[in-house]
């Protein structure tokens, strides 16, 4: 469904130019979750931003159902809403001055074809209920919510336009552990109910392990390993993956 081919992205100019992503290719099938892991600076967030159209690649193709995904704003409306993103920082991913109902309403006004037919208030309450939020939250400004609540609203905003691919860029990294597992469970649940594909980006193998069907490992802009999640985690082929696994295991042992 999503196909990324030979993606090259670099930042900076002339001599200070460096390659953030170097020849990365990956695919995400229907109803599948691809976990993209790697240390910070490995280029995984850049891949995510290219997929949603926020960053323009130097070369390479990003195809959705075989059709090219251009930069944000140039995409046809149906493709624009087909790919949505959940950001890392729950607080800044919502405009703190807007109420939750205004946030969702903006999504529906932008893509009226995805808005509920009939009563939008009922639709809003249904949507909030889907992400495990109380209907009373709708009246609150985003600035008054907790981190976990903000992330649920972000997910609701993405789901409001009925996307087919959800890109989660470190979507649970900024949350504390108990909230983290709640949000992860929510994502798994929503994915099954709404038939979503997911590109799930995280530096944390433990988190990816809980949600991914397949795992791709990036290091310094290059894809070093890719495979079915259980295989990659039980029998890593690349030494970098092995060191990542060891680091994750050590942390588990300590805690």
């Amino acid at each position, binding site marked *: 469904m999503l196909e990324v081919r030979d993606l090259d992205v670099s930042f900076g100019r002339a001599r200070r130019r460096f390659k953030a992503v170097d020849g990365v290719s990956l695919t995400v099938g229907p109803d599948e979750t691809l976990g993209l892991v790697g240390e910070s600076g490995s280029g995984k967030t850049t891949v995510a931003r290219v997929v949603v159209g926020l960053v323009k690649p130097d070369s390479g193709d990003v195809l959705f159902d075989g059709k090219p995904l251009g930069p944000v704003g140039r995409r046809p409306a149906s493709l624009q809403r087909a790919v949505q*993103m959940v*950001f890392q920082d729950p607080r800044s991913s919502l*405009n703190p001055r807007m109420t939750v109902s205004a946030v969702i309403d*903006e999504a529906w006004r932008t893509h009226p074809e995805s808005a509920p037919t009939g009563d939008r208030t009922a639709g809003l309450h249904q949507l909030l209920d889907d992400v495990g939020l109380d209907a009373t939250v709708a009246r609150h400004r985003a600035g008054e919510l907790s981190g976990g609540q903000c992330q649920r609203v972000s997910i609701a*905003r993405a789901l409001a336009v009925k996307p087919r691919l959800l890109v989660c860029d470190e979507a649970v990294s900024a949350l504390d552990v108990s909230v983290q597992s709640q949000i992860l469970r929510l994502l798994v649940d929503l994915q099954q109910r709404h038939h979503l594909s997911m590109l799930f980006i995280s530096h944390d193998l433990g988190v990816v392990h809980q949600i991914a069907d397949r795992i791709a490992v990036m290091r310094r802009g290059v894809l070093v390993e890719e495979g079915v999640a259980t295989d990659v985690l039980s029998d890593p082929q690349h030494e970098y993956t092995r060191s990542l696994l060891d680091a994750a295991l050590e942390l588990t042992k300590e805690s």
Partner: protein
Amino acid sequence: MTASITASAVRPAVVRRRTAARRWLSRIPYAVLAIYAAVAVAGPLLVDYNPIQTDLANRLLKPGAHLSSGGTAWLGTDGLGRDIFAQLVYGARTSVLIGVSTVVVSAVVGTAIGVTAGYFRGWLDTVLSRGIDILLAFPAILLAIVIAGSFERSVVVVVGALSATAWISFARVTRGTALSVRERAWVDAARVLGVKRRFILIRHVLPFTAGPVVALATLEFALVVLAEAGLSFLGIGLPPSAVSWGQTIANGKQYLATAWWISGLPGLALSLLIVSIGILGDQLTARFGRGQLR
């Protein structure tokens, strides 16, 4: 830290009295400005004054002197026998009117330009920013003099001449805010959602410039009132039929040694207004000016 805790524990009454006094003092500028606003709005309805009508029999009277018509010139009269108190009242209206309209015009223009430059960046930002740099290299009052001097004297020309440089600070401040707000994830989220650029600007960027703009508006207001008085003092500001503190001060400059009240009292009124606005502006800057997002 410990010291201040002990001190407040030992002398809570003193501290409380001091904070109460400070709170009371911080309200003085509001009171002063309220008086000016009231005088500007209601004063001309209560006080009768015609700048063209002269009364040479009562020229250069001291404050509190009796007029030949039987009234009292509470703040004296000028070289043409015109009442200073009435000039202050009418001048307050002129100053507030010019100050408010110039600040509104330059805030709207400056914010529009600054937010656009900061949000879109690229060549548009480069052109606008370099344009601002060139304007900044030119003394503001000189530009105002050139513009005001090359047209017939009127309120619109004065507002235009003063706005010609006043918008720059608004543009610079809002450009900076827009530059930082555009990096926030909620702007990215709106872009991914496909929200139109003008709605992103209006809904997700513009509201966050409000605090700094309000704080800056007060400071600009003071500068504009001062600049208007300066232009009128130079004789290129408002037409002679309008009453302005600058003109009154200019009228009194040949009598400074003998009749201080002609220039002195409008000067005092002007200073008090500027100082009050300055203090108010500092308070607003401390509260909103740092680009706090909430």
